[in-house]
């Protein structure tokens, strides 16, 4: 044991004196801190945007509330008053636009995941969602392709490189420096010495990632106490990943090749796991299970919409009452009741297709998941983004939440429309409370 600490001590001294270790640590820490700030910057940008739409929504609704109190004996006030209390709005496309935001989970800034591929807020009114959800955030596709330089990127891509750089010459350096025979003449076996050298390097790596993760929490202002579980999960995953790379490098070293060849082999393994296997997987899955043709949904909706308008009103009402038998029977001459009934048909049509598409996508992702272990880098990244709730699934959950919110809106609006009533102050109050939730 004493011998062991002895080796560690001297190995540490010689490592620390070489400028290579300092340079490597400096680069990795620098990259890590840049990544932390970049992640913070991106999330703050999203948060500003979400705050902006929420503020706008609040303002707009407050003016509606104010308009609903106007004195309608003045002609100038009448339109505004109507606008506020009428569940159908006044005129074309003057419905109130509600916004729902996909608030950033606490660790989103450490792993931006797929959050930049999807909108973080949706604006919609009480009419059909089918024609309102097909929007994207304005984004430079070049940036989407390149991906984000966040902390998870540093862990997944750069830390393995650090491990390779620290490990590749553990054996070869002794041999090429002529110290190998000296070591072999010692009472301890060469393996013990190599393992202790490896252990020291691993400690350095583990310490570096721990420091980086702590810095991530600190600089992004994430409370360690509240998110301790997530912190530990992240740490465990990254430790496991580091262990995997250490073992791989151990394999490379055990071949006892020259420093140059060991470095090449290490980099070769890195390329295979971070670049080649994920790229091959993507290629085969794209060929095996191409993504669905989503234009079909827009087509189906427009075709149905066309029929709604071209066919007699009973076309809409018949289908509407089949689905919603509880509604008070409509006044068939009433335009609004027909008009709003037609929206539900559009959504029904779209939802059936949407489900079908999601099933297709799920199948495709299942296929990717089954072979994920071939690409440990991608697997770790996927795990980290799942933990940070920035993966595709968390966006899907947000979309589901939006559908539920929209259903809730419809309950309030359709009730009034089908009984040909206006919003009472209490209804507006209910709606107003829903906003701030």
């Amino acid at each position, binding site marked *: 044991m004493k011998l062991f600490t002895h080796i560690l001590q001297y190995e540490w001294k010689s490592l620390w004196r070489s400028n290579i270790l300092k340079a490597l640590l400096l680069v990795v820490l620098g990259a890590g801190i840049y990544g932390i700030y970049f992640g913070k910057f991106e999330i703050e940008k999203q948060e500003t945007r979400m705050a*902006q739409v929420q503020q706008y929504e609040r303002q707009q609704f407050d003016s509606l509330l104010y308009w609903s109190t106007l004195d309608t004996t003045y002609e100038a006030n009448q339109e505004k008053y109507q606008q506020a209390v009428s569940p159908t709005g006044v005129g074309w496309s003057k419905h109130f636009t509600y916004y729902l935001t996909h608030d950033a989970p606490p660790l989103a800034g450490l792993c931006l995941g797929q959050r930049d*591929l999807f909108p973080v807020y949706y604006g919609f009114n009480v009419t059909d969602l089918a024609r309102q959800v097909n929007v994207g955030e304005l984004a430079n596709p070049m940036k989407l392709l390149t991906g984000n330089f966040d902390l998870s990127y540093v862990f997944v891509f750069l830390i393995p*490189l650090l491990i390779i750089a620290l490990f590749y010459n553990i054996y070869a350096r002794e041999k090429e420096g002529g110290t190998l025979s000296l070591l072999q003449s010692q009472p301890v076996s060469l393996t013990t010495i190599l393992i202790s050298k490896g252990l020291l390097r691993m400690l350095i790596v583990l310490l570096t990632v721990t420091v980086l993760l702590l810095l991530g929490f600190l600089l992004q202002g994430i409370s360690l106490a509240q998110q301790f579980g997530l912190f530990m999960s992240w740490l465990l995953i990254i430790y496991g990943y580091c262990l995997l790379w250490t073992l791989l490098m151990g394999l490379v070293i055990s071949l006892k090749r020259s420093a140059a060849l060991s*470095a090449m082999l290490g980099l070769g393994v890195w390329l295979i796991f971070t670049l080649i296997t994920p790229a091959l997987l*993507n290629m085969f899955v794209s060929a095996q299970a191409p*993504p669905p043709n989503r234009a079909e949904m827009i087509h189906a909706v427009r075709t149905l919409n066309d029929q709604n*308008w071209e066919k007699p009103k009973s076309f809409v009402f018949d289908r509407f009452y089949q689905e919603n038998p509880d509604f008070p029977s409509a006044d068939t001459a009433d335009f609004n009741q027909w008009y709003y009934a037609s929206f539900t048909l559009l959504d029904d049509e779209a939802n059936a297709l949407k489900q079908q598409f999601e099933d297709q996508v799920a199948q495709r992702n299942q296929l*990717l998941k089954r072979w994920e272990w071939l*690409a440990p880098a991608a697997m770790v990244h996927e795990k980290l983004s799942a933990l940070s709730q920035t993966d595709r699934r968390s966006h899907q959950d947000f979309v589901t939440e939006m559908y539920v919110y929209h259903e809730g809106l419809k309950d309030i609006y359709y009730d009034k429309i089908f009984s040909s009533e206006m919003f009472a102050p209490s209804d507006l109050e209910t709606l107003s409370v829903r906003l701030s939730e």
Partner: protein
Amino acid sequence: MLNLIAKKEFLTALRDIRLQVSGGILLILMLTAVLVGKQGQQQLQQEREDAQAAMRAQWVNQGEKHPHSAAHYGQFAFKPKPVLSFLDVGLDNYTGVSVFLEAHKQNEILFSRAQDSNGMTRFGEMTAALIFQVLMPLLIIFLTFNTFSQEREEGTLKLIHGQGLSMAKLFWGKVGGIYGMVLLLFVPIIILAYLMLNQQSASLDTEVTTKFGAITLGYAIYFLVFVILGALVSAFARSSGVALLTLLGLWVIACIILPKATTNLASKLYPAPSQFEFRETIRNKVKNGIDGHNPSDVRLASLKEEVLEEHGVATIEELPVNWSGIAMQAGEEYTDQVYDQEFSSVESIFHRQNRLSEWIGFLNPYLAIRHLSMALAGTDFTHHVTFARAAENYRRDFVKVMNKDMEVNHKPTIEYSDYKVGQEFWSSIPPFQYELPSTANILATQWRSVAALLVWLVALALIGNQLAYRIPKL
């Protein structure tokens, strides 16, 4: 003499088991990438052509209805999958593929593949471009890193020099031999890829051969740049080990870290508005006028006056033409103006972001070839914008025809639901067609990347020539 050295380098490389293995792996990867890539491209293109044809049939057979209802029914435009995207998929997984074209509204181009995938997509797709841009330089590093340093370590460099061979000759001989080795891997794949261009390719893009040639030339230059760079580092490095580490370090920075950092920096330097701000600006400008002092109701009133005066009548009811048709077309045109302004301002932000990394191509040849390759393959941002423009112009044209018909033929006395046109009219609208930008056009927009590659080549060649005699022999 030069040939002899080149031949010796070539043969040494060919006999090295390590290079046989890595070269073999690379060859297999390239074969897979090209074969699977081409098949995928063909399949996607077929799907999109079919979808486009099906939507066209829907349009023609939509039955009898009012032209304005037809404009709402709308049409679709599908983005063709460029032929050479099988070599370089570029931005294709991150840009939308189809757009719904309807009255009043400029829709987004939607449904990128990345949105239908999990996070794995971000790790890239195996394409020839990925191999050429990232893996090939690595192979070149392995081929070059010890070309001088090893001879120096073994003492043969001094011997060769002692025989009166100029170092410049030795340098270019080595570069030639190693480059020959690289071409041995590159040329067969390129020939194979060329042979895969078929009838469908030619009909999709008439200039495909020129573009293919330009891409090949671009990569050939890119490889040569790395070969000279590697030989130079090997010539002046203290040892083979140092040479290798230096080159690997440069590779990691150039191919892995810098591209990401550059793009992220660009998005910080030139921030783009959010979707919400963008839509709000458009809405406000349509409502209050582009200059803010020309609200929509005033615009409508003055248009009305103009039209009434033109026909010499006092009220809309007396007009011999359909007022709604005129008003709607005027509204469309004003909205189009606003859209154009706002879209081009966002586009120019994105272009500025991309241009930053094109400029950085002068520091990092990887970025230069990346942009050039994407552009020539038809998968860069410019191509996406060109398609968006083409689709939008098509939308405007057909909506205009619908409005015009309404203005002229839908007499004011007829009810909306009673005025209908049919198939003959729908088929008179030509189907959507889109021409890919020409090679000359692409090279003109990508002049920075072309220049960067050439600057790299010329500068390294000059440096090699100038410094060769100084290569340490011991």
